[in-house]
């Protein structure tokens, strides 16, 4: 292989990394509060609990709706298209990733993360 091909290879790798960094920047989602989420133009993550009894299904639009309440007490309507399981019940801690739609006044979630205390979290009293 000549020097030229090394340069071509290096340029291709650099290009790939630039593309990756661009994608990295554009898909990065930050944790914000409800207030900030309502004005953010980028996708964000909001954590909170599901308000008891607020969960309902809209079969026409294929979506799940519920109200999320964060620690500060602020609330927000969440719409989720259920492409992943909604394995949660009322009063479950949940992290939703998505974007706020100011027209419909609803946060359209693309991802829901149920904080299920898995094996790593268990602790016994007196330990």
């Amino acid at each position, binding site marked *: 292989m000549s020097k030229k091909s090394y340069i071509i290879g290096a340029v291709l*790798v650099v290009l790939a990394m630039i593309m990756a960094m661009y994608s990295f920047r554009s898909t990065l*989602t930050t944790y914000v509060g409800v207030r900030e989420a309502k004005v953010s133009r980028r996708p964000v993550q909001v954590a909170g609990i599901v308000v008891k009894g607020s969960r309902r*299904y809209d079969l026409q639009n294929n979506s799940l709706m519920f109200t999320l309440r964060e620690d500060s007490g602020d609330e927000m309507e969440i719409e989720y298209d259920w492409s992943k399981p*909604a394995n949660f019940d009322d009063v479950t801690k949940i992290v939703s990733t998505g974007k706020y739609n100011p027209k419909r006044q609803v946060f359209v979630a693309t991802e829901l993360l149920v*904080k299920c205390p898995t*094996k790593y979290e268990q602790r016994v009293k007196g330990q």
Partner: protein
Amino acid sequence: MSNIGQVMMWLGLIGVSVSSACYLVLCLKKENVLVRTAARMSFAGFALSVTVASMLLMHFILNHEFLYSYVARYSSRDLSLEYLISSFWAGQEGSFLLWVLLGSWLGILLMFKARDVEPQVMLIYNLNNIFLTILLIKQSPFRMLPIPPPDGQGLNMLLQDPWMVIHPPVVFVGYAAYTIPFAFAIAALWRRDYDGWIRSALPWTVFAFVSLGTGIIIGGYWSYKVLGWGGYWGWDPVENASLLPWLAGTALMHGMILQQTRKKLRKTNFVLAAFSFILVIYCTFLTRSGVLADFSVHSFVDLGITGWLVIFMMAFLSISLGFLIARAGDIPVSEKGESISYFSREFGLIAAIVVLCLSTVIVGLGTSAPLITRVLEKASKVSTEFYVNTNLPLSILMLFLLSFVPLLVWGKNSFSKLTRKLTWALIGVIVSGIITLLNGYPDLEVPLLSLGVLLLALLSGGAAGMNLFLATKLIRKRITISGAAIAHLGVALMFLGIVSSSAYDRSEKVRLVQGDVKSAMGYDITFNGPTFSREGKGMRLHLPLDVKGMGSQFGARPDIYSERGRDGQVKRFSHPHIRRGLVTDLYISPVDYIPGEKKSHSGSHLNLEKGKKVQFHDYELMFSGFDVSGMMGKKDAHDMSVGADIEVSYKGGEPVTLKPVMAVGQLHSPASRVKLPGPQEAYLTLVSMQANAKTVVLVYEGPEPAEDKESQEEPPAIIAEVSIKPGMTLLWFGTFLILLGGCIAIPRRWKK
């Protein structure tokens, strides 16, 4: 009380340290039979101590010795044998012990296989064992509780699956195995033997590839079968943590083959061997230290080993860098003048290594996003699109390479000779293209993504055709040399499966009311009404369905399991029903259950108010008072229980008093079930009570009388997602071929 398990861990640490010291002496001085025997014996002592420690932990789990905190946290009396066994590795400490155990066994094998490089290889290998043993002593599975609870907390419901029993051991064999190429690489740098190590390390690298690969695939299969979201890979940090060393290790495997045959990539292979091992530790750090706590489905808690993990990572990084820098000038570069033709196997392999490395770096970048962004501003994560968008072009490139590179020979190739063979790739492209277009152009949100997916489908078809031809030819010739072709065919089929199941899956969400026929995705589905059963510490809601259509009729049984955790949250686990087919899978996942409204009771839950008679089925029930005798004289809240006196008469017969009991303590014992009077198998379980409101809630398990259904105002319903997933069989078959190909290749590489 002495803690024999902990003593064993200390003995193990002493053994492995003495062994390392002896090997160090052997590395620095000349051969000494006595020292070598001491080194081997103390390593055997280490393996023995770790084995005894593991047997002890297993013994404690099987005998429900809840004095040990670990046993109390991850097992319980009601678990069946296989899940008791898997409780061993359900938690952090136990899984580290498993890792050390498997590592010590592999080490014994390595000790006798390493031959003349034994001192250096075992010294480096032992460093990792010392590191893991220290972590184990620091975070011991043998920690004891002041007072043993009456029962353990049990095993996470999601892990109660046969695949999850074998998944962790397989992954940890892989983790332990990736230490071996690293040890050989450092030993080679130490001894300035820059080519010889490849021959000894290659079979281990293929072995690590197969074992970690198997672990990853089992994980994906479990996710598809159990989690109910219809996918098999979610780019979760935990999944990525096993993928990263595997990708780097696969690059290493290809690099080693190139070096073995063409004496190229010497430096690259050292870097890759170090890279894949350090990634194992880095990923352990990512997933076990709590740095990703807010970003994964798994809520990790920092158990105080983060510092240690960082120290060890830095130590191994410095060892690798130190040796590489010290020997950099000494490592011979490939012969000058002998340039690589663009159309050769060498070039194809180099390109494949570059693509695999790029993928490793990109997935690593995404997984580390919370760490990187924490330094800059607020901790953030990347969404799954990042992984898809970046890996799509890389996989297109990979499949493009796979559709012709395996045909090429080392050195110069003439295109004209290949044209006839390339028709197989062309046939693959055409077949795949026809099938794809019959099903329509991939309809994704981003046009570029659709084009990429189409391209990937075509090239996967090409690679499949090409490698199918090659594999058939080689199997006929001699099966032992067909490993690579079979594995490459597997990669192509897997990607075909990925494309068809993710770009062509269709789904519909339906509300299925009990008794009504509803059609979804071409099937007529009837919900037959729910049944409950108590299971472990929670309740399983069975949702039997009758499914008719596409010339078949069958019963589907998805279910929803719910359990109240110690934090008071109710956790639900929806289990899908999968009807597998050669071409498509029918995947029915219950999303939610809506209990019907009844006058006196809802579903099979009975709310009884004190002193009020309630008619239910053929019974007349009355809650007459609490029985608090179970609270008296008990010091520990764990042992307390409360009962309710329920007067029941069956079909107007003589009333009897039933006394269902409920435990008060945090770790409740399996609640007692009381049989209702009458000939049928019907039971009551006390599930909750409100002392102030003087009400109790009971669960009825038993036959539902037919006439009772009509009295319901609204029958129960479920919301289910019905999806058709094409190509899943192809996907699993492809992954199987990848592993099979690896298995075929191991003995061949071992002999050489």
